[in-house]
């Protein structure tokens, strides 16, 4: 490609402003859509944590189980979430890790207050004392957590993220060394993490502060899980020594896992020993951090990438067709050039130069489309995001991608016209081009139209199916009434309420809300419906043997107030609902849905039946008082 080719191509484009504008807009949309998706792919799927030498980091576990689990994990024995004791066991068994940190699988939202200021809901994460040193992260101010901070007798301390320091504490340098209240408990802020560091994973709400694992019992009191050896809630991530054989390490850690499981009755009882041999861990590169978001969004992003590529291909076919149509007018030029000595290579080079130049201009315009597009997608995909560590601004990699996409696009849509031009008969120049009766471009043009139509049809069908699916999702029957229902979240613990004061608080909330004009019903629940969160347990029916490790005994549960089902419009279909007489001192009654009744008590009346959790001896703990219509 020479300067002369570029100059000539520019003149050609300037000569046909209508064509140029149409092509540039089409390309800007096509390349822009691809670049927008790539911005997200790069920002979410391909990015490394902003830590020292991320390639040395490895995670034990490869899936996204969350947030507190008990018993065997998954169906195939792939362990990915661990208790504190099990983490320590694996850490001792793997000296290949220079350092092995543990991070909380699911993060919390805690009430944080400084002095007498109003409390803020901030995101927290429990991490082991070696978390920052494992990642190679030093402090921006003060100091980061150390091993000594993660000890039972250590003073409660926390490290703020740079973003939280900026936005929640007005960048006050005096915060370092100050005491703040977290869930109504005093913690000393010992330091601020450096700017740009967002923790161990890409998430829409990165932690605002980190606390040592040892402070978990201090915050959670009786419900603490740090020393529950069978409560799995941690992800281990560590830095391996150079030259470590990861496959061998994985084998040894899997053996260590099995050895540990075989010492725990939780895993050995009720036939559990039989499935221990298939339990294992998978060690995966951890440079990108914990991949939960990547695993959730990965498929969607890949699908979007495919769709935007199809859109770009359609744009290519469209412009190739336009170029072919223009080719009739340019045939004289090409024929004269060939008559004056231009070889095929030169002719092809000239046409490709023109198309690549066009696509590069389209690519430049596409960067603006990409910026707007990726911002919009991020806003739609993460509407509640705070401090999302994914930037819509084009990075060097994104610029590189856009340039490469422009180059490939230019070559793609330039090939057909270039091929046609290179097969022009220069003799036509002598005969006079107007005497040419053949229309050599018609066949490729038809092929391109067919190609375009086929791809458009695929996209259209996909779009219609997607719209139908979205419509169905939007209008599906959740089994509850959602009209005029509003959800409020309370955090009594964050406000310093102890467990003994909570029942009175709930009663008062219920009474005062019920007394408001326009409020017809008030219900309270540990988790509201459609929130996407609740607890699960293995159900043991009274009179039945204990379920084995492979049995499908799981059921989710929620703790609710007396009028909760009324408030969400769910009818009782058998038995009764909760009453004011169902107090802490009355027999423990539960309401189950129809699906539960059919699953655990098939062909029976579930009302009056008993079941329990954990162990067979507790199988009579709960009595089913009623059955309600199944809700989602």
């Amino acid at each position, binding site marked *: 490609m020479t300067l*002369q080719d570029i100059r000539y191509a520019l003149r050609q484009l300037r000569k046909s402003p209508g064509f140029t504008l149409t092509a540039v807009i089409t390309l800007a949309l096509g390349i822009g859509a691809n670049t927008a998706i790539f911005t997200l792919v790069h920002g979410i799927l391909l990015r490394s944590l902003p830590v020292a030498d991320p390639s040395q980091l490895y995670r034990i576990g490869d899936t996204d189980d969350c947030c507190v689990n008990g018993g065997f994990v998954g169906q195939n024995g792939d362990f990915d979430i661990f208790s504190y004791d099990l983490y320590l066991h694996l850490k001792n068994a793997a000296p290949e890790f220079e350092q092995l940190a543990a991070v909380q699988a699911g993060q919390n939202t805690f009430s944080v207050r400084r002095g007498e200021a109003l409390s803020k809901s901030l995101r927290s994460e429990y991490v082991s004392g070696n978390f920052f040193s494992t990642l190679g992260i030093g402090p921006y101010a003060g100091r980061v957590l150390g091993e000594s901070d993660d000890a039972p007798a250590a003073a409660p301390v926390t490290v703020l993220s740079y973003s939280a320091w900026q936005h929640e504490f007005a960048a006050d340098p005096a915060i370092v060394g100050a005491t703040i209240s977290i869930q109504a408990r005093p913690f000393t802020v010992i330091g601020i993490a450096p700017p740009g560091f967002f923790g161990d994973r890409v998430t829409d709400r990165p932690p605002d502060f980190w606390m040592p694992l040892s402070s978990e019992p201090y915050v959670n009191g009786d419900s603490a899980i740090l020393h529950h050896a069978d409560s799995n809630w941690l992800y281990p991530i560590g830095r391996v020594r150079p030259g470590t054989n990861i496959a061998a390490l994985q084998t040894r850690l899997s053996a260590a896992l099995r050895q540990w499981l075989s010492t725990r009755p939780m895993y050995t009882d009720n036939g559990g020993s039989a499935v221990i041999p298939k339990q294992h861990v998978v060690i995966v590169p951890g440079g990108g951090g914990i991949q939960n978001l990547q695993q959730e969004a990965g498929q969607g992003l890949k699908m979007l990438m495919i769709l935007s590529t199809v859109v770009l291909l359609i744009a290519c076919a469209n412009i190739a067709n336009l170029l072919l149509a223009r080719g009739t007018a340019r045939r004289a030029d090409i024929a004269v050039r060939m*008559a004056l000595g231009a070889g095929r290579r030169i002719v092809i080079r000239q046409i490709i130069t023109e198309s690549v130049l066009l696509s590069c201009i389209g690519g430049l315009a596409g960067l603006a489309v990409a910026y707007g597009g990726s911002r919009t997608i991020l806003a739609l995909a993460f509407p509640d995001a705070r401090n999302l560590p994914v930037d819509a601004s084009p990075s060097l990699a994104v610029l590189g991608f856009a340039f490469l996409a422009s180059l490939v696009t230019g070559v793609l849509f330039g090939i057909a016209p270039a091929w046609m031009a290179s097969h022009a008969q220069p003799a036509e120049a*002598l005969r006079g081009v107007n005497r040419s009766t053949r229309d050599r471009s018609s066949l490729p043009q038809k092929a391109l139209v067919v190609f375009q139509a086929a791809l458009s049809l695929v996209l259209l069908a996909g779009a219609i199916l997607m719209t139908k699916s979205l419509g169905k999702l939007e209008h599906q029957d959740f089994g509850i009434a959602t009209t005029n229902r509003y959800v409020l979240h309370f955090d009594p613990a964050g406000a310093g309420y102890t467990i003994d004061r909570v029942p009175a608080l709930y009663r008062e909330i219920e009474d005062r809300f019920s007394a408001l004009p326009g409020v017809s019903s008030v219900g309270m629940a540990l988790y509201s419906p459609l929130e996407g969160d609740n607890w699960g347990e293995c159900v043991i029916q009274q009179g039945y043997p204990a379920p084995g490790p492979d049995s499908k005994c799981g059921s989710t549960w929620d703790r609710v107030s007396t009028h909760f089902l009324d408030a969400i419009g769910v009818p009782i279909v058998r038995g009764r609902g909760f009453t004011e007489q169902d107090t802490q001192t009355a027999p423990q009654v539960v309401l189950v849905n129809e699906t539960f009744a059919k699953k655990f008590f098939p062909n029976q009346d579930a009302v009056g039946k008993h079941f329990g959790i954990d162990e067979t001896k507790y199988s009579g703990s709960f009595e089913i008082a009623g059955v309600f219509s199944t809700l989602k």
Partner: protein
Amino acid sequence: MIELKNIERSYKTGYTETWVLRRIGLTIKEGEFVTVMGPSGAGKSSLLNVLALLDDGWLGEYWLGEKPAHKLNRKQRADLARQRIGMVFQSYHLLDDLTVAENIDLPLSYKSLPAKDRQGMVADILDRFKIVAKKDLFPSQLSGGQQQLVGIARAVVHAPALLLADEPTGNLHSTQAREIMELFCELNRQGTTIVQVTHSLENARYGSRIVELHDGWLTRDENLHAHSTEVGAK
């Protein structure tokens, strides 16, 4: 310079085959100025295409100097044409988006010459054709005669041994036509072999020889400086 033996060319249209050149035998010596004449459809332009090595579909033998063009592939023919042949067209065929200087530079740019040498050659030809003042103009800013002058300058800038011209004055008025023909004579005097196609007998008289085609057959070969020869046809 040129030797054609039994050159034949036909075009297939559906099931019918139309012959445009039939058993052409022609020898053109170096330094000759030959005019090809004949009625429309006689095969003049087809013959010129063969001579220019722009057409691949002919049969027979074509020797250009010592080179057997009939044995060369398309690329080799293009290389040979690039080195030895210059073309002048009736409709000038200047590229609208290139300036006069860039148009003249075009055949040089296909010869892998250093840019400096090319600039020198273009400057020389602009000077020689007295169109230096027009070098930055675009073809649309020139008259027909000026455009053809540029077309000829472009054809001879790389000093071809053979200059082929297809109706070079067809679109010009008589004064301009005379100037162009005198320029051809001048080029011919300087050693360029010229083959032109024309309908004009007046223009033909500038040359040294007239060959005439009828229905693809070479029917007459007249040396204007000697007695004419009737070529035996059919």
